[in-house]
């Protein structure tokens, strides 16, 4: 970009965003960011601003945009309550490694610390949940700090960055504005080379394995190594399981796909974790929801852990070989060292486990008006690439378990923080990327009511989001936990809900309700064929529990297929 002369700080912020390739900003105006809005006004063609209905919506939309696009998502809000309303989304992005830059307005510098109207110490309280944050109090800092912010958000293990910019910094005049992208920070080494020794050790283990298992996580998608994963799995004849956030990195009907690991994952994936002899974990962090009891997790296996964040290696599970590296670089180094193998009986074991889960759980769920059935019908009726934006709770597990992800599809959901209300605003962000032919937002009745106001954003911008509401008039996962661990004391799990169809119709969005199995397929078809936003409420069974489940404190291979087994 040519240098600019005598521009305001606000103009500099806008130009910096344009230089970083930002085309969409999700935001909400307020007293302390209005100078930036005034600058946006003159750059309407370059930057699209999307007015959400609540700041939490802005940050989740930025996350949805970032996850769908593999680019940095941006949200812009004002000081005080605008800033505090971001916190949930920032924490969410931190746990799920989502690259976002959040810009908050702030009171003028002389008022900092004097309890001015809408002043709050956002830099202080966002510190534990940001990868980096900074307060800009002078316009002269804007170019270098914004360049640093975008570099930090997207490089290495991605994450949220917050910039707090005082109003006087937005209005000051910069004599000469020069923008250079940041490519290096002395104290920050985001992309380390895999060490040759560890790569060789990993290859030896894999070549000698009798029962190898690969688990892929979000890191596979972040580094874009789906092809390498597939090549390695096929070369080694190695089954591939996935974490929740890694689901769309392998086509789910691949014969080597073992399913999802974890608490409500697939039976085969969990049983094989504690039966394999070599466990190759790629871009995942062994979260408690994945591993069950850590003392009894894959103790029989030599674990190879490929992970870009050095602090994750050995944090929960001590690997036999730890490879600190970007997943793609590591797999590219390992692949040429791998000999072609075949593991027929091991794969047969997988198919037996899969058959058992089909017989005892899946087939029954698909024969009734249950969450899994509704999701499966969407999976079958959709045509073209689809982003499944799932909320949190039973609806999320049903989405993960019953949608069959194909190349081009993506799951976008709140994995680490488990943020109810994530899906509706995140689907707005995903819709803006135009990366998918369909954006399907799957929610329960609890989460829907947490960010229901974003229906207004969908209405105003005519976003073609397909909203599938799996309504059981219950906080289903809570009811399930009360059922399993609290003597079925269903205390505060049941909800008296409004007429959702009427609410959605009031926003001018096409809406319908289904309460019997026969009506499901035609309704889903109508939704998926409709040109524009569509809301489908499915009145699913009221008392459905998600099985299989790893009971609390148990090992992954102590997973229960039914309440009685």
């Amino acid at each position: 970009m040519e240098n600019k002369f005598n521009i305001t700080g606000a103009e500099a912020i806008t130009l910096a965003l344009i230089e970083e390739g930002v085309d969409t900003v999700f935001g909400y105006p307020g007293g302390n960011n209005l100078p930036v809005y005034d600058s946006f006004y003159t750059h309407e063609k370059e930057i699209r601003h999307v007015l959400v209905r609540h700041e939490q919506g802005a940050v989740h939309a930025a996350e949805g945009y970032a996850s769908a696009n593999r680019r940095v998502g941006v949200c812009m809000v004002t000081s005080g309550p605008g800033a505090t309303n971001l916190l949930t989304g920032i924490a969410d992005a931190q746990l799920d490694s989502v690259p976002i830059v959040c810009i908050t307005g702030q009171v003028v510098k002389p008022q900092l610390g004097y309890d001015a109207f809408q002043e709050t110490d956002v830099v202080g309280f966002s510190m534990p949940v940001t990868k980096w944050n900074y307060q800009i109090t002078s316009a002269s800092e804007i170019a270098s700090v914004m360049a640093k912010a975008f570099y930090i958000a997207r490089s290495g293990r991605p994450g949220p960055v917050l910039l707090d910019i005082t109003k006087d910094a937005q209005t000051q005049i910069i004599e000469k504005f020069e923008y250079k992208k940041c490519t290096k920070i002395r104290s920050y080494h985001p992309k380390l080379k895999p060490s040759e020794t560890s790569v060789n050790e990993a290859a030896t283990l894999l070549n000698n394995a009798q029962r190898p298992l690969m688990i892929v996580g979000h890191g596979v998608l972040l580094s874009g190594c789906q092809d390498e994963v597939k090549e390695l799995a096929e070369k080694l004849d190695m089954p591939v399981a996935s974490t929740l956030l890694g689901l769309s990195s392998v086509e789910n009907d691949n014969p080597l796909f073992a399913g999802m690991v974890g608490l409500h994952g697939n039976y085969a994936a969990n049983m094989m974790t504690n039966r394999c002899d070599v466990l190759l974990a790629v871009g995942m962090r062994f979260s408690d929801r994945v591993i069950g009891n850590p003392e009894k997790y894959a103790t029989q296996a030599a674990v190879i852990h490929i992970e870009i964040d050095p602090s994750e290696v050995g944090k929960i599970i001590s690997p036999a070989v730890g490879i600190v590296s970007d997943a793609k670089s590591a797999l590219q180094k390992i692949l040429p060292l791998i000999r072609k193998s075949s593991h027929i009986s091991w794969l047969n074991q997988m198919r037996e486990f899969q058959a058992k889960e089909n017989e005892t759980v899946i087939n029954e769920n698909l024969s009734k008006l249950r969450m899994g059935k509704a999701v499966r019908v969407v999976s079958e009726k959709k045509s073209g690439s689809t982003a499944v934006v799932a909320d949190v709770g039973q609806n999320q597990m049903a989405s993960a378990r019953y949608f069959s992800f194909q190349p081009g599809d993506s799951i976008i959901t709140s994995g680490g923080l488990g943020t109810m209300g994530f899906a509706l605003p995140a689907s707005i962000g995903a819709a803006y990327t135009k990366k998918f032919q369909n954006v399907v937002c799957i929610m329960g009745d609890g989460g829907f009511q947490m960010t229901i106001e974003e229906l207004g954003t969908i209405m105003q911008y005519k976003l073609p989001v397909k909203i599938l509401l799996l309504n059981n008039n219950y906080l289903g996962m809570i009811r399930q936990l009360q059922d399993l661990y609290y003597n079925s004391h269903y205390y505060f799990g049941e909800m008296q809900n409004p007429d959702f169809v009427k609410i959605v119709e009031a926003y001018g969005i096409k809406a319908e309700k289904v309460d019997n199995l026969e009506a499901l397929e035609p309704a889903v078809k109508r939704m998926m064929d409709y040109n524009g936003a569509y809301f489908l409420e499915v009145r699913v069974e009221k008392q459905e529990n998600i099985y299989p489940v790893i009971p609390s404190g148990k090992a992954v291979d102590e997973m229960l297929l039914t309440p009685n087994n």
Partner: protein
Amino acid sequence: MNRKYTLLIYTENHVGLLNRISIIFTRHKVNIESLNTSPSMEEGVHSFVITVNTSLAQAEHLRKAIEKQVEVLKAFLYEEKQVIPMEVALFKISTANLKSGNALEKLIRESSARIITVEPEFLVIEKTGTQSDIQDFLRQLSDFDVREFIQSGRVIVTRPMGKLKDYLLELEKQEEE
């Protein structure tokens, strides 16, 4: 088993870094026993010396969480036998003590402490040593009516011979282009 560990942390010299580091201890509910910050040999690089009583696993986890911060250059973890520690303490005592015999002067001499200023009303003694040297000295001073006592955070030199610059060069070599 809980033991004393010392973290030596090199950082950029930026506003807010102390907070970013200290909240990591808060989050893990580990108490900071002592903390010292000062400029380092390298220009623009600040050092933190933090001591904690905790398990080795927890201390190593803390080290990694600290080193993960964008503006932290490097964090090292040391056991007691790997460091040579020192602390400094100041004691304010009434000058009248000097007039009532030479017991105080004798104690100061024998303890390798020194008087750094004598005012009409009070004098200030400085004692450099380990935590226990200083505590011993404070106990011995109990007969002399200590009016004020303050002790610095721990500073250390470490036994390994590596230089910060070498570690940083090493890291750069490991980076992908």
